[in-house]
């Protein structure tokens, strides 16, 4: 049952073949069984999940009309607040904090009847590409427990790949949904910026952060997308327009006549051979399905990474200033006679990890008077250029595509001491955030040289998210008929647990 898709689980619930309580319990059992090895979860809300499941079962028994995902379990990235459930953002500085309110994403999930199993591990404050920066220890990739599950949302992607949950929520600032999806053989979508409310998403970089759906199939991802998306008056940057029809697009999977633009700059040198091979094969399958493949150029993408590492740290240096021990979270050094300033200093010294401190320092420096124009100001100009690159390219194509990441999952610890190498992992995903457009990663197979999953990225213009779902669904169908079974069924047995 737990290996089914969310859509299949939903059908089983509707037909009465199972109950939400049974489904939820099965996932809780799976978590007890495997999470000691995977460490996808930071907190499992057994009681809350079962109560919600019971509520949905009761509502269904009363004949109430329920949404398509009612009663289906989900794993929530620990950067979104859920009332009374611990939220740490993978940081010591928030250890023990129980938020007094629900994020809008959680409100939407609850009103759709989705069962939240618990909170998933992540790089501290979503800063990282491997989940190794979590203050609570790394998450392991279910494909190979010695490898990273991607990051920052490695807990969510690993939970999906290990069948601990059929659905998950991630957040994507520079690739934190798509890169974990790519390296775990799952699907992840970063919606258009402003498509999903950021209210209750603990901010890393406000102008780049976007919550999005993660699942094992394109359709499941679309179903979850429609549950969490929509205008929210509590988020001023939320777009006041109808949600793109992503479920319909995922169901039709029609790419006939669509123009698919291959980004010249996001391929070639620096991309692993197997990654390139899978990418080329996917393009052929899409062409066979009726799409037209064209090449597009985005000359300014090469500056995206550098600009990103000015904008994101700048915003984070300000966003993370609120963690000062005054109102919530960790408090260190509060002894007799200690000044507020020294308590703030000591708390931040102890409470933040190395990567977070590195980025706060970078951002503080970049915003300093005398450096602002050269750093933050220039980075914003680059951002405009990248957006223009996308706009020009989208005149020639309906969606753009690239490999999601240059490589498959690397070993835990392999890049821990080399932040630049780590940052390069996001080279293909960052431009999407810089322009605020939509991006999806879905599995395109495994790299022959290491047997690890490879991701295929689809990018669609602002509020045209349905396009990436059409292309994703078409590719998924073509690959499935080629493989004969979902990619995850080819994953090695998880540490002896089937």
């Amino acid at each position, binding site marked *: 049952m737990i290996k089914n898709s969310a859509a299949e689980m939903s059908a089983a619930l509707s037909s009465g073949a199972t109950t939400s309580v049974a489904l939820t319990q099965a996932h809780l059992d799976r978590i007890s069984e495997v999470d000691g090895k995977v460490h996808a979860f930071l907190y499992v809300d057994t009681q809350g999940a079962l109560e919600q499941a019971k509520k949905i079962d009761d509502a269904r028994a009363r004949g109430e009309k329920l949404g398509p995902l009612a009663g289906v379990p989900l794993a929530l990235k620990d950067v979104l607040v859920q009332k009374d459930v611990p939220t740490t953002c993978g940081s010591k500085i928030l250890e023990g904090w129980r938020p007094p309110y629900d*994020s809008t994403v959680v409100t939407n999930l609850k009103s759709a009847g989705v069962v939240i199993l618990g909170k998933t591990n992540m790089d501290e404050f979503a800063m990282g590409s491997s989940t190794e920066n979590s203050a609570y220890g790394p998450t392991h990739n279910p494909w190979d427990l010695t490898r990273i599950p991607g990051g920052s949302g490695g807990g969510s992607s690993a939970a999906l790949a290990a069948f601990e949950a059929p659905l998950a929520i991630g957040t994507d600032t520079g690739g934190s949904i798509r890169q974990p999806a790519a390296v775990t053989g799952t699907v992840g979508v970063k919606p258009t910026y402003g498509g999903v409310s950021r*209210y209750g*998403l603990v901010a890393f970089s406000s102008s780049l952060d976007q919550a999005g759906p993660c699942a094992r199939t394109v359709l499941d991802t679309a179903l979850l997308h429609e549950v969490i998306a929509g205008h929210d008056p509590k*988020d001023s940057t939320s777009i006041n327009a109808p949600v793109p029809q992503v479920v319909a697009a995922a169901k039709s999977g029609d790419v006939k006549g669509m123009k698919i633009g291959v980004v010249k700059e996001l391929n070639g040198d620096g991309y692993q051979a197997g990654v390139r091979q899978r990418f080329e094969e996917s393009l052929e399958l899409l062409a066979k399905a009726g799409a037209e493949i064209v090449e597009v150029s985005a000359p300014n993408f090469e500056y995206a990474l550098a600009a990103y590492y000015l904008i994101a740290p700048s915003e984070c240096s300000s966003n993370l200033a609120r963690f000062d021990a005054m109102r919530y979270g960790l408090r260190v050094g509060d002894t007799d006679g200690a000044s507020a300033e020294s308590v703030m200093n000591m708390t931040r010294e102890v409470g933040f990890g190395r990567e977070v401190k590195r980025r706060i320092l970078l951002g503080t420096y970049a*915003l*300093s*008077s005398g450096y*602002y124009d050269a750093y933050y100001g220039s980075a914003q100009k680059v951002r405009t250029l990248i957006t223009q690159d996308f706009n020009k390219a989208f005149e020639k194509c309906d969606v753009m595509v690239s490999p999601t990441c240059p490589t498959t999952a690397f070993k835990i610890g392999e890049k821990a001491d080399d932040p630049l190498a780590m940052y390069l992992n996001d080279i293909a995903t960052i431009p999407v955030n810089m322009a605020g457009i939509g991006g999806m990663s879905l599995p395109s197979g495994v790299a022959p040289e290491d047997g690890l999953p490879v991701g295929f990225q689809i990018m669609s213009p602002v509020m045209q998210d349905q396009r990436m779902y059409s292309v994703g669904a078409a590719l998924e169908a073509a690959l499935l008929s080629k493989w004969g079974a979902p990619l995850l069924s080819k994953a090695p047995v998880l540490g002896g647990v089937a």
Partner: protein
Amino acid sequence: MSALTYEDVISKYEPVLGLEVHVELNTNSKMFCGCSTIFGAEPNTQTCPVCLAMPGALPVVNEKAIESTILIGLALNCSIAPFSRFARKNYFYPDMPKNFQISQYDEPICVNGYVDVEIETDEGPQSFRIEIERVHMEEDTGKSLHVGGSTGRIHGADYSLLDYNRAGIPLVEIVTKIVPGTGKYAPEVAKAYVAELRDILRALGVSDVKMEQGSLRCDANVSLRLIGSEVLGTRSETKNVNSLRSVERAIRGEMIRHAERLNKGEKVVQETRHFQEDTGLTRSGRSKEQAEDYRYFPEPDLVPVVPDAQWIEKLRAGLPERPSLRRKRLQEQWSVPDKEMAAMINADVLNIVEETVLLGADPTKARSWWLGEISRLANEKDVAITALAITAKDVAEIVSLVAQGELTDKLARQVVEGVIAGEGTPAQVISARGIKVVNDDSALMAAIESACAAQPETAQKVRDGHLPAAGALIGIVMKETKGQADAARVRELLLGHLGQSGN
């Protein structure tokens, strides 16, 4: 002690001013969340995830605050920016929940305005133009209460308490350009400017403008330069100036302090200073040379403010009459002496007097009721006049009843007191208390006869033509009739009775 007098200072130096006024708007909710803004609530009861800066919470701009700021800008003759943005001002302080303040930096909402203020000079009334550089929006901080220690400041305190009720209250900052050319009148001009701003803001209805409660706060920048010099001197910025009088005193004090340093060949330090109400002097705050770098950048959680041009024109069309012009107009229309006009303004009764006059009351009578008896009762109860139960309509009615002879002044005072005591409208009070002028001449004659019988010697004096003696007899009659008689009529009848009619 200082040997330098103010005259010494102005004979040698020219002061240059710069004034920053912070105004708390009186919106019902805070700048970026829905919390109440009522003053004086229990600490931390008017807070929510947004104004406490809970992780994940986001600001949403209060539309009413934008409207109020645009109104202020228009009233100060500013241009309204078609596109303006919020920015983050980053610094750490325990009473600032986010450890950044949402403010406006290089793209404020209103720019380039002016206010003309008039002061009394040796050469008569003179007008000074104060140019406004910008008007921008921001949010207030919380309040720290430092307990223990001798200074009430954070240094040396045993512990501190934080109240976040004020955190996020909408603030508008009004910044002048430098103000040269005021010479020896600099302190008065500054005071008149703040007073004018206060009046304008009050007329706009956008703020309570209570300096003592901090809803209007002034920071005064002062520098001196040698008379004739074009080069600006080093300025100090004095904060904590909490009354109009303090504005004047603080600037005068700073001018003397600067001159003393300059005369000794010392440099003025560019710094923040705190005004001390008791001494009238300022004390050094933090030095601006170690000024914090606020690392301003555009607030990514908010979208730019792009006000609709038609909306701005609608607001402009609805602006109230400029208070100083209105005062002049009313003073002329009502023929009020300067001193009385000033008294009305100080007592803040101009609006209600005007309202009473518009309901048909004689301006002099209306003024004397509000400024006299009603002000006295308000003082007695220690409440604002407007908080009393009496309205302009009540007073207009009372004035009319007195004019018609239905009430005497003395009876009218009883009616006023009754209305204020909550006994209802003037008519209700009159009927409930049985107040009526005794107009029945025969009843009055009986009382007059009995008064004359009781004091035959006094009556005789009146008969003999010593009219002032009549007062004592009138007093007895009034007492007898419980004050309900018309004293003028009593006098007339008494004099007739004692053979003095016609005098």
